[in-house]
């Protein structure tokens, strides 16, 4: 019998953002594949930084580290 250990875990690798034809393309992690306007990308980036800061505070680590 095969033991399944397939629990989805949070990604530890960042997505890769690039600019293409005046738009922002986000690739990864975990199958993410999104195209955004520059304004939407900037706002998403801001939201991600804010959420990352809040998450770090929840676990008592400093922003920029990934110690969990």
């Amino acid at each position: 019998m095969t033991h399944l250990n397939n629990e989805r875990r949070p990604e530890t690798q960042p997505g890769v953002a690039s600019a293409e034809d005046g738009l922002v393309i986000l690739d990864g992690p975990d199958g993410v594949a999104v195209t955004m306007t520059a304004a939407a990308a900037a706002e998403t980036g801001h939201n991600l930084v804010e959420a990352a800061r809040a998450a770090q505070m929840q676990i008592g680590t400093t922003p920029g580290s990934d110690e969990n």
Partner: protein
Amino acid sequence: MLTERFLRNKRNVSLSLGERECLEAAISEVQTIEPRRVLVKAGDKLDHSTLLIDGIMSRHIDDHNGLRQLVAIHVPGDFVDLHAYPLKTLDHDVASMTTAVVGMVPHGKLDDIISERPQLGRKLWYATLLDAAIHRAWLFRLGRLAAVGRVAHFLCETNARLAAVGLSDGRQFPLALTQTNISEICGLTHVHVNRVMRQLREERLCIFRLSVVEILDPVGLAARGQFDPTYLYIDQ
């Protein structure tokens, strides 16, 4: 023969000449359809099913904003909406992507085949199970793969399906789809697809130009798309 590509080169199934002739005789009408025409609307009451003889067709669902997700494409030899035989209506639209030639098979004729030729009836069942296997692969593609992997997987799958029916030499095949079509298949924007195509070309994996796909590195492209053709049940 109109049915020559149906289940051609599929594992554990082959149609005898008599079975192909029987299926051929069940076709009541052959139609040529222009590109981008909806042949079946979701919810239509259906009394026939459609065998694709030439061209490419799709099954699609539009969201509330009118944005389209292709949930299947069909290549020559596919029984596009055999599901409509037991279901009588479909939950999605069926449309031509290119000029398509189709054979209409009345459900009454399928009744006759199933009662008089049960072995051929099982082969029709096999065809719908093959569609289900491809749907599972499409779920995997959209759920697990990043943009370049999705496109690589789709191109590998299409190459394998077309090769099975004699329409690809395994390295090069005609594919009269636009990048918008591929974006609707892979859940990407056309800008994203354009970038992925350039990436595949720069990595010397594949070139898609002038409606022709040329696979430069089949092993590399399959690896990029995590493509394993087992689910296509193609006779090796």
